[in-house]
C-alpha cells in the first residue's frame, strides 16, 4: 500500500507485530510502520468486527488502535516505534487482563 522513498536515510528499527518481525525507521509512527509493512487491516471493530486501518494519521479517527507492549487501545499514529517494541493488532473489543 505504501513504499519508502530512496531519499530516506534514517536508521532501521526492528519491532514485532503479532509475533512477526518487521523493520521500520527511527521517527516512524507505529501506524506508518504497519502501513509500510503492508499489515492491513490492523484492527477489527468492537461493534461488528469490521476491518479497519489507519485513516487520518493525526489522532482524530481512532481507527489505528493497536496494543503496544501489552497496553491496548493505543493510537498507533501518535506513538513512535522503539527497538524491540511488541505490537499486536486489536481484534474486536479490548481485552482486559487481571492486574
Amino acid at each position: 500500500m505504501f513504499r519508502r522513498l530512496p531519499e530516506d536515510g534514517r536508521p532501521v528499527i526492528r519491532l514485532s507485530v503479532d509475533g512477526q518481525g518487521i523493520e521500520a525507521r527511527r521517527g516512524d509512527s507505529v501506524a506508518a510502520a504497519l502501513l509500510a509493512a503492508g499489515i492491513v487491516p490492523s484492527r477489527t471493530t468492537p461493534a461488528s468486527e469490521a476491518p479497519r486501518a489507519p485513516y487520518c494519521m493525526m489522532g482524530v479517527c481512532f481507527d489505528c488502535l493497536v496494543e503496544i507492549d501489552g497496553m491496548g487501545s493505543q493510537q498507533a499514529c501518535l506513538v513512535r516505534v522503539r527497538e524491540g517494541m511488541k505490537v499486536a493488532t486489536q481484534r474486536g473489543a479490548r481485552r482486559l487482563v487481571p492486574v
Partner: protein
Amino acid sequence: MTDSFDVIVIGAGPAGMAAACSAASNGARTLLLDENAGPGGQIYRAIAASPFKSGRILGHAYWVGENWINRLKRSGAEHRPRTTVWSLRATGDGVEIGTLGDGVAQILKARQAIVATGAMERPMPVPGWTLPGVMTVGAAQTLLKSSAMVPQGEAVLAGTGPLLYLFARQLIAAGAPPALVLDTTPRANRLRALAHLPSFIASRYFFKGIGLLAAVSRRAPVVRDVTSLAIEGAERAMAIRWRTDAGWQERGCDLVLLHQGVVPNIDLWSSAGCRAAWNDGQACWHAEIDSWGQSSEAGILVAGDGAGIGGAEVAAIRGVLAGLQTAHLCGRIDAGSRDLQARAAFQALARLLRGRDFIDAAFLAPRWSRIPEAETLVCRCEEATMGDLVAAVRDGAGGPASLKTFSRCGMGPCQGRQCGLVVTEALAAALGRPPAEIGHFRSRPPVRPIPLGALAAIPATDEEIGSVVRL
C-alpha cells in the same frame, strides 16, 4: 518544572508556536503543550526530524515552518511534547487544564489559555469510506513528510480543494504520480466563486493556483465534475466507481485518498463553554472570537485554524495576536506596546485574507459528499448509518443530543469528531431547520480518552469526595 504559568498554549502548529513565541518574548511565563513528539502541527509535521535532506519534494511552503521552530527554541517558552490535553475549564480566576503525559494525568493552572488545536479533514462519508486502504489526503501527506513514504500501486485521489492538487504535485515530484484524480468540485461553485474573483486575482493565491492545476494535469489523469463516488471492496479498497455527466465508470485501485477541505477542531474550546457560530460559507463551526482571539469565556483565547480556517500563514498571525493579548492581560506589556507590535500583524492579516472568500466558495464540498445516502456509515466508531440516523429522527430524535442517545452516533472513542458535522447537516436537512439552530454535539471532559487509573489520580477537594462517598 512548575505547574502554574501565565499562559498555556495548547497545540504546536503554526498558531501555537507563534502564540508561544509572542507571549514568551513579551515576558509571559509560557508553556506550550502538544500531543505529538515534535512541533509543527499537521502542516509542518516532522519538520524538526525530517527524513528528507532536500527541500525538493515537499516544497517551499513546508520548509518555511523551520523559522517558527527556531524562534520557538529562542523564545523562552517551555515546550512539553507528547502531552495530551483532555480538559479545559475557565475558573473565573484563570484556567485549569487536564493533561496526560507518559500515562500520568495532571491539572495545570494558568492565568490564560490559548487553544491552537488546529483543523482536521472534513469527513467525506462516501460508500466504502471506512475500508482499509481509504485514507485522507492529509494522512498520506503525513506519511510523506514524517516517513518519506509514498503510495505503492494505483492510488486514486478524490475530492475538492487546493490540497488535493498540492499533494498530487508532491507525489509527482517524488516519482509516484497518482493513477487518477477525481475532482468533485461542483460546477455550481464556479458561479458562486465568480463574485469573489476580483479579490482572488488580486491575492497571492491566484498565481499559485493556476500553475498547480496545469502541473498536475500534465502528469496524472484528472476527471472533473464528479457527482458521486463509491469505494468497493470487502477487506480493503479494491476499486472505485465515479459518476459524471457521462455516467458511471469504474477502476481498480490499491489506495483511495479523500479530501474535501479542512474544518476546525472545536472539541476542546467548545467543551470549555466557548461559543461556536455556524459559518455558512465554509459549512462548519467557528469560534466566536474578537480580533485578538478572545473567546466568549474569560481566560480562553482561540487562535489559528481551530477557530476558523484561514491557512497556515493566517494561523501564525492570529497566534501572534493572541500571544500579545495574553501577555497584556497578564500585565507583562501595556496596551500601547501590544498595539504597536500588533500593527504589522493586522496589516499582514488583511493582505492574507484577500482571496480566501473565493477559495471558500470555489471549493466548498458538494452536499452529496457531506450528507450521505442510506447505507453509508455516518459514525465510524459505532457503525451507525445514515439510515439509522433517519430512523432515529422518525422515532423522535430532535437534535444531536437525542440523536446520540437513540443511535449511539458520537459515543465512540473519536467522540463525535468524524460524525459531528455530518450529524448537524443531516439533521438540518431532515428537520428542515438551519444548522445554526441544530447545534453540535456537546463536548465534555474528557475530550480525549484517558485511562481510568490515570483519571483516578487527579486530586479532589473534600467537597468533591463527599459528593461521591456518601454515608
